[in-house]
């Protein structure tokens, strides 16, 4: 998550992380579980890294209620 190519999704609990991971993978979108970066305070130990290119797809999953996240971090 060192470049603008990736975004990081943050969640309240590890339960929410695993749930989101399953949904993202099921939709054929690449993602990776990473230790929560320092910039994102107030979170559980893990976050989900996704490609910035996939953000529109992720946003539409979120809009239709299939996917939830608490916070999104977009590195400059």
């Amino acid at each position, binding site marked *: 998550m060192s470049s603008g190519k990736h975004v990081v999704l943050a969640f309240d*609990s590890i*339960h929410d992380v695993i749930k989101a991971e399953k949904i993202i993978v099921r939709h054929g979108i690449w993602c990776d579980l990473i230790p929560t970066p320092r910039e994102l305070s*107030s979170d*559980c*130990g*893990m*976050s989900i890294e996704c490609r910035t290119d996939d953000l529109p797809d992720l946003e539409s999953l979120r809009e239709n209620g299939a996917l939830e996240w608490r916070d999104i971090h977009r590195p400059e």
Partner: protein
Amino acid sequence: MVHVGANPGRSGHRLSAQAARIVFDTRQGLAELFGVSDSRQIVFTSNATAGLNIALHGMLGPRDHVVTTSMEHNSVMRPLRHLARERGVRITVVAADREGRVDPAAIREALEPKTRLVAINHGSNVVGCIQPIAQIKEAIGKVPLLVDAAQTAGSYPISIERDGIDLLAFSGHKSLLGPAGTGGLYVRPELDLPPLVRGGTGSRSESDQQPDFRPDKYESGTLNTCGIAGLGAGVRFILERGVETIHNHEMNLLDVFLERLRRIEGVVLYGPSSTEARLPTVSLNVEGKSPSQVGGLLDKRHDIMVRVGLHCAPDAHRTIGTFPDGTVRFSAGALNTTDEMEQAVAAVDEIARS
């Protein structure tokens, strides 16, 4: 599992993630089995007793009133008696009939303006009768209902959201076929229930306040991940076979068992006489012999292990008229066979003749 010795959610590495996936899958399986749409409302505990304690301590404040039944296990009655001493909680115990059944109308009549909870043992661990949970909830309206499903989870259909159940505690090591040291509690999302234990959750680590989101709110400290993995395997087995199929199988075993036992002279059977709304749990006595004598002979001579005595439920034995000696209790499960039931009958027959 051998390779997943990490703590779910405490760190960002692969093994921790794998452990978290196992916990997640087990939680999802339980939600599916119990008819719960969001599995976050199910929290893991070390057994049913721990879940019941969260519910009872969290729901009952100073001088609140609670309604329960004469069929409860000590894991409900002892916390309630403690709360009566400590918080002035008032307890009404509704008596069941001789077969162990509780009338929903009698529960409704016991309600008072300050009734904060109705606590019901779904399936009796002494005589196997099932209480009509949906009718009881209908009868009590908005008063929260706590169901002790220690005996029914995995062997009798449970539909939490459809039946309006507010709280439900279950054991992992009985009919859910999981290992000892597993269990859980369902908490209806609208209930503002404080946790009993607070501590580290792996989430909101910068805060010294307990998180208020689920499941973390009720799951402080390291979970029994190995046990939960085993419980997950049990739940998968049940979902694949179907809880109705398991229940029907158990009722077939019970039919064989009861029908043959009735023919043996000197055997006294307790509880419901039919297989209607019940579990394959049978309490009996052999005339002229104490429960412990019968239990000892079954074990030593016949390799059949049963539990004798009061089964942690003295009031249930008062209800069926077997206090203080208790009974010999047999119970069948998903993996038992008709053959084994016949062997058990033959053993009881031999003991009754001796």
